[in-house]
């Protein structure tokens, strides 16, 4: 059963290999986004990017409990989810830079990164839209009699859009194999979510619709890993949809361009101390893992993502006829776009 998430990680029975892999993956996400931020500063990323720095624990805690053939539908803040689901960072970075060889051939950018080959059905530019898509994927899984699970990760702002009610109700009515994870970072863009949300919050709402719901510290990867593992097992066994509210904090602005003037610097500084990577590193160190091993994860990740960025910078623009491809079969604009 789930260990008491309030117990210090070191006191729990840790699977060190698994947690080392988590640590490594979190660093890869962090380094990818640091490189993306650099690309933004260097004006090579032109559209908006939404970094998930500080929220890597959720991407890793959730996706490491999903199989490659399980489905994930993500949000605007989806780089970490996508990497954790197994997408290739080279293709992702090329997509951010709008280059040939990007996941969407440069036609989607950061907010439409997708990799169907690893079950990643796309980031989404419309808040909460991924909830319905997840319910639909789960519905198809059920119709086809498969043992896969569909998962969506969305923000705490998304619970005020209709799909939260409609999609969760749908998943429960049809007892679908769906996991809904709310990345509760306390903010929706520049607005404190609590100021615009009535009632007791995401988990209480999910519970009211009949989904077993759980509150987890999303910055404690160990706790989240266990919670998701149990939830996914129950869902895969036919237990119907479940909900996890994962508390976290976004350590950067809402977008790379956001000066973040609405949060006290002290709050942000304090939140850095709760960074999920630091916390896991501490737990691993407490469990006897050597510091140089942990440092190597960071170094390797930065090296990998620097190379990924260099590759993307050198990649060509997509050929112009790509703009007219992949629209529709009937009425294909390559024959007549007017």
């Amino acid at each position, binding site marked *: 059963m789930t260990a008491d998430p309030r117990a210090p990680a070191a006191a729990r029975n840790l699977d060190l290999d698994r947690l080392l892999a988590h640590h490594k993956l979190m660093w890869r996400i962090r380094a990818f986004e640091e490189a993306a931020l650099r690309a933004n500063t260097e004006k090579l990323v032109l559209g908006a990017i939404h970094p998930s720095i500080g929220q890597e624990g959720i991407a890793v805690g959730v996706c490491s409990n999903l199989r490659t053939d399980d489905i994930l539908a993500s949000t605007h803040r989806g780089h970490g989810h996508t990497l954790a689901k197994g997408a290739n960072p080279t293709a992702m970075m090329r997509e951010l830079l709008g280059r040939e060889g990007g996941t969407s051939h440069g036609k989607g950018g950061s907010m439409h990164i997708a990799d169907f080959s690893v079950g990643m*059905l796309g980031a989404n530019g419309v808040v909460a839209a991924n*909830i*319905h*898509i997840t319910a*639909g994927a789960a519905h198809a899984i059920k119709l086809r009699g498969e043992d896969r699970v569909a998962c969506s990760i969305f923000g705490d702002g998304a619970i005020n859009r209709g799909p939260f009610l409609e*999609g969760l109700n749908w998943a429960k009515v049809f007892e679908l194999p769906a996991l809904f994870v709310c990345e509760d970072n306390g903010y929706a863009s520049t607005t404190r979510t609590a100021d615009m949300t009535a009632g007791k919050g995401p988990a209480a709402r999910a519970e009211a619709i009949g989904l077993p719901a759980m509150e987890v510290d999303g910055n404690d990867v160990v706790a989240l890993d266990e919670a998701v593992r149990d939830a996914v097992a129950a869902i895969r066994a036919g237990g119907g949809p479940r909900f996890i509210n994962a508390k976290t904090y976004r350590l950067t602005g809402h977008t790379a361009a956001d000066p973040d003037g609405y949060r006290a610097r002290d709050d942000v500084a304090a939140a850095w101390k709760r960074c999920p990577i630091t916390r896991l590193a501490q737990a691993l160190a407490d469990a006897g893992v050597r510091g140089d091993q942990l440092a190597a994860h960071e170094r390797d990740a930065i090296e990998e993502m620097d190379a990924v960025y260099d590759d993307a910078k050198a990649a060509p623009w997509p050929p112009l006829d790509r703009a007219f491809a*992949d629209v529709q*079969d009937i009425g294909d604009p390559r024959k007549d776009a007017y």
Partner: protein
Amino acid sequence: MVTMTYGEAAKNALHEEMQRDPTVWALGEDLRRGGVFGQYKGLPELYGPDRISDAPISEAAIMGVAVGAALSGTRPVVEMRFADFALCAVDELVNQAAKARYMFGGQAKVPIVVREPMGMWRSSAAQHSQSLESWYTHIPGLVVVCPSSPVDNYGLLKSAIRCDDPVVYMEHKNLWALEGEVDNNDPLPLGRCRFLRKGEDITLVSWSATVHEAMAAAETLTGEGASVEVIDLRTLWPWDKERVFDSVKKTGRLIVAHESVQAGGFGAEIAATVSDVLFGDLKAPVKRLGAPRVPIAYAPPLEDTVRVTAVMIAECARALMKE
């Protein structure tokens, strides 16, 4: 050759496609009762609740679930009940269904059919009568189909289900009981118009229920000695430009008639394109006949003030043929 109603034609088409392809399923409110217009009648008995599925009154979820399920290897047929209610699901249709293939760089397609019963149906008033087909023609990624007869509802629904694109499929509520002969078992091609009448003096282009007004007008005009060509566009996007052009090259005169609001209606697109491409062939200005830009009223006499009728079409044609 079998006689069936417009509603039965669609039901038979769906039945045959469900038999042919086990990934086809339908979802919508009250489908297990045969659908609110009886257009699914009999299918719940043939197929279990998985394949003819009821749904909560959650239009956005119905559409969004269909998108997710289409991205995951099934072919959903979405029932929106009234085209008006599909407006609750515009994000899912326009931002998701129509965009997924493109913005994900062709990694997946969204093979859904969105059935949106449209149009005036005596005293249904402002929120149950609209014809919004032109909105969807504006959205890259969507195919838009408006059948006017049983034979077309049969053949075009089959094609729509087999098509890998999202298809907005708008059946006219006033046509459900219309009987006609269905003389084929095959799908009919999307993007092809149908010539209902051949003629030399003027071309009438229309779709959906207004096709029947155009045909009645043609009958009257023929009695007066005119030779009228009537084209049922059937698919609005992509529209069958070449055949419409051929017709107008021959007649030199064109009226586009539709039930929807004239301003910004699809008739404007056809009129502008024909005027542009065939300017030198035209004997008269291209005319549009659509509804005035007012909501649809409840009281029958008020409701009738927005109708495009055979009388209006005939009158307009007579004026054009004087030029």
